[in-house]
């Protein structure tokens, strides 16, 4: 029995209620309030499942001869917590935010269904149910992406999104096909009992990496993500970025760690390579993005890369029978996944609040919001610090664990791992540094300085529900940052199930220090670091105010004495990124700056045009689309032939088959 499974029918009922009551305020409260309650229950249920025995449930639906199987184990429990957290936060946010939704009838019916799809993915215990839920999750989130369908960009986003989502589903289908074998043993239990051979396991791992990776946003399969996530209403963006990508990570873990069993060492190499590249490409693209929500979406790509670095390390350790290392790396990855859910949701909520306050997503039109909004800038700042991986917040804790996993053991027997692990360490470090650059830019341009447009100048603080959601997540960012040991201990059953080992118990320590392996090796204490910073600030403030003059005088900015009449003279997002663009972008993104200087006598203002090419679009997707278009164009000629030509096809087919028959005989 599995009481938690009841949330799925409840959510579907809410969906139905959403259709009926979409246009009324009651519908909004009902759907989001209901989702909030359900998500809370889900989080609690997931938490108890971490330590409880596995629960099973078989329903007489789905594929007739195996039914629909659900299972709640520690891994599922952890991801249920994640969904409960992200979903609950998003619902809380939406209670206020969705008041401004123009087309609630396009959002309300799909929102609970989206949640239900994600929950069902996590609970599924056979391939059919898993993929059913997987595609359901894609389809309902696609409908949410299409909520604001009149904007042309959104239609394109939805298109690319659903294609890639279907690609992901079909690819995973192939992986399950291999696992299920000739007889169609789609139940996960029977797959676990008949693990594939090493070669098949490798292929399954690769296919699952492509399948789950295209949903999670691994480069080069990430192209849909920066299009689709921003297109949806902000609470849905938060859910897609913060939770759905994690469900994709779950899919990868479930298949590769649980179902496939031990993989060969090169599996780790591949995942590490992909993860490292994803992290860096993602953050570089985020750095060059001017749309706030797209920036956040690209940053999701980066964080998914970091999670996959952890997973790759875990695979590498597991292939070498190093249980402790595998547990450490897996814990780091899952911890980062959890962290990403908190701070990315927070940031998307913030972006939603900004969008609501100004109607703008383009950073070049924002600025100075810190003066006009009271709470949002503060919590958004916390999100920015957390996502930049800076102590004492949670982003640092998980990245620190990942670094420890990188450093754990250099003596791998395989050359591939010897090379890729240090390189990944460097890529991770680079990504972390670039991320802080990226979020200085994002925060500085949007919230600091002077407003760059009237809309930004007239911004107002958002509603209390939204603020409550943001404050909740900001608190979580801080709490998991200063007591990371609690999260690590929570993750222990998951790591034990999947790697056979677990990290040392953390919470026993009097100072709540986290010690991944041994105290002499490395340790970190978020609580103390936080306390030290707070104490030194207090000491300093007190001392300074004793010692120094108290006067504060407001004056026009100095700025080296330049008169500065217009906010346009501020550093813009584009100018901020320019040094980085020069360093990293000239080769990778073929970025160019063209000075457009009018001829003498021409009154036109001079300007500078920057161009950035996306190597993934240019290298893969555009040629692919062009090829398909070309073939479609050529084959289209076959639609305009004479009847005689069609008859000759029949004739040719007949002759060919007869000849083939003679040859065969």
């Amino acid at each position, binding site marked *: 029995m599995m009481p938690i499974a009841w949330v799925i029918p409840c959510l579907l009922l809410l969906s139905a209620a959403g259709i009926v009551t979409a246009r009324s305020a009651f519908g909004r409260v009902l759907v989001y309030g209901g989702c909030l309650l359900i998500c809370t229950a889900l989080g609690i249920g997931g938490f108890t499942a971490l330590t409880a025995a596995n629960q099973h449930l078989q329903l007489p639906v789905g594929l007739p001869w195996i039914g629909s199987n659900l299972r709640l184990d520690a891994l599922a429990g952890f991801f249920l917590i994640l969904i409960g957290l992200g979903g609950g936060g998003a619902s809380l946010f939406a209670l206020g935010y969705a008041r401004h939704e123009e087309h609630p009838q396009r959002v309300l019916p799909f929102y609970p269904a989206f949640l239900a799809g994600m929950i069902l993915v996590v609970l599924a215990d056979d391939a059919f149910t898993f993929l059913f839920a997987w595609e359901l999750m894609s389809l309902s989130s696609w409908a949410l992406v299409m909520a604001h369908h009149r904007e042309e960009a959104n239609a394109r986003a939805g298109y690319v999104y659903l294609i890639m989502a279907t690609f992901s589903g079909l690819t995973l289908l192939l992986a399950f096909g291999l696992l299920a074998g000739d007889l169609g043993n789609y139940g996960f239990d029977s797959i676990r009992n008949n693990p594939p051979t090493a070669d098949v396991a490798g292929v399954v791992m690769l296919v699952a990496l492509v399948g789950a990776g295209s949903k999670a946003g691994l480069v080069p399969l990430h192209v849909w993500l920066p299009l689709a996530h921003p297109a949806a209403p902000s609470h849905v963006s938060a859910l897609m970025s913060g939770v759905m990508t994690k469900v994709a990570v779950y899919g990868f873990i479930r298949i590769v760690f649980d179902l496939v069993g031990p993989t060969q060492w090169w599996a780790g190499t591949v995942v590490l390579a992909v993860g490292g590249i994803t992290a860096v490409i993602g953050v570089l693209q985020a750095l060059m993005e001017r749309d706030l929500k797209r920036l956040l979406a690209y940053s999701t790509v980066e964080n998914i890369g970091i999670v996959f670095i952890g997973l790759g390390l875990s695979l590498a350790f597991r292939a070498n029978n190093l249980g402790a290392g595998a547990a450490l790396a897996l814990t780091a990855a899952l911890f980062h996944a959890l962290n990403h859910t908190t701070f990315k949701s927070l940031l998307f909520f913030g972006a939603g609040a900004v969008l609501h306050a100004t109607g703008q997503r383009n950073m070049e039109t924002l*600025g*100075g919001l*810190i003066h006009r909004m009271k709470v949002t*800038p503060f919590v958004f*700042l916390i999100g920015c*610090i957390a996502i*930049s991986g*800076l*102590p004492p917040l949670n982003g640092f804790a998980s990245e*620190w664990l990942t670094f*420890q996993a990188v*450093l754990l053991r*250099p003596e791998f027997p395989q050359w591939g791992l*010897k*090379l890729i692990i*240090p*390189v990944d360490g*460097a890529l991770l*470090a*680079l990504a*972390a*540094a670039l991320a802080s650059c990226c*979020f*200085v*830019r994002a925060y*500085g*341009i949007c919230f*600091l300085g*002077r407003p760059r447009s009237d809309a930004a100048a007239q911004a107002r603080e958002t509603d209390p529900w939204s603020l409550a959601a943001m404050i909740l997540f900001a608190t979580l960012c801080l709490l998991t940052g200063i007591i990371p040991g609690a999260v690590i201990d929570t993750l222990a059953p998951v790591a034990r199930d999947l790697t056979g080992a677990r990290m040392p118990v953390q919470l026993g320590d009097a100072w709540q220090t986290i010690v991944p392996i041994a105290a002499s*090796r*490395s*340790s*970190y*204490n978020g609580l*103390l*670091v936080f306390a*030290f*910073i*707070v104490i*030194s600030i207090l000491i*300093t*403030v007190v001392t300074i105010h004793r010692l*120094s*003059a108290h006067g*504060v*005088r407001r*004056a*026009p*900015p100095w*700025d*080296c004495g330049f008169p500065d009449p217009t906010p346009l003279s*501020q*550093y813009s997002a584009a*100018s*901020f*990124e320019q*040094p*980085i663009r*020069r*360093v990293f972008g000239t080769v990778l993104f073929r970025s160019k700056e063209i000075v457009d200087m009018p001829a003498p006598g021409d009154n036109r203002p001079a300007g500078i045009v920057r161009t950035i090419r996306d190597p993934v679009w240019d290298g893969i997707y555009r040629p692919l689309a062009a090829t398909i278009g070309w073939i479609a164009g050529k084959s289209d000629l076959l639609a305009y032939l004479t009847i005689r030509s069609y008859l000759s096809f029949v004739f040719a087919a007949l002759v060919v088959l007869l000849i083939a028959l003679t040859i065969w005989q």
Partner: protein
Amino acid sequence: MIYPLLAQLVQMTVILTLSPLLIGLVRKVKSRLQRRRGSSLIQPYRDLRRLLGKEAVVAENASWLFRIAPYFVFASTWVAAALIPTFSANLMFSWSGDLIAITALLGSARFALALAGMDVGTSFGGLGSSREMMIASLAEPAMLMIVFSVALIAGSTELSTIAGYMLNGQVGLRVSLAMALAALLIVAVAENGRIPVDNPATHLELTMVHEAMVLEYSGRHLAMIELAASLQLMLYLSMVACIFLPIGMAGNANEPLRDAVGFFAWLAKMAAGGMALGVAETIVAKMRVFRVPNFLGAALMLGLLGVLLLFVSRGM
């Protein structure tokens, strides 16, 4: 229990109080080498006092962030500096953050400072922040690569453990360590805004980085920032000393005598380091901002090469 706590407090106080002196020393050395008499060694202290005595002029549209940032910057730097073993490895809280955490703490300080630079909304502030973050985006991974090299050799990221490992002399000469040292020097120069990456003495618009960020600051805020900068310089010098030249540093035992020896050894190291920096700054010219990435890229590559060597062979 009490002894390490005392050592910790002494460390925190000493590093804070002596750091302006280090700045004074570097300036003095540079002046002498330029055949100037230069200001007094304790001029930085006087500057701080003067700044503290003045009223703070804050730009009209500066926000709360602008006023909090100096304290945060100072506090993070101070906490980071407190974690570095200077004269003794026997610090009460040295385990609360390892080398990675120290790097990240400095990153937090920089994050706050860069935001503060953008707060007023002037072109110079943005310019400074942008360049600072660009430099950091290369210097930080380079620093982490150095951390990796050292940690792989010592088997720990804890500075006290590393120092202990280096002290017992079985390390020998290693290629990877040499690379790490070279990279660390480059990073230290860049992170502290010294020549050839940045010039702390300049206010020439097109060349300044750090100074552009803090252009709007005055009074006690500026004092905090200046103090944090000098703390950071001392932090880096101590770090180099702790990792590559831990001679004389006291171990884990509670022995006041050895601590005293360690203290003077540390003072000597700082003095030597300050003079070396002064000399180096005199003979090298500042480079163009867009040459800096190459310079730091070299550090990153050196660090990565060192780590790779360690992964391939433990003996390197």
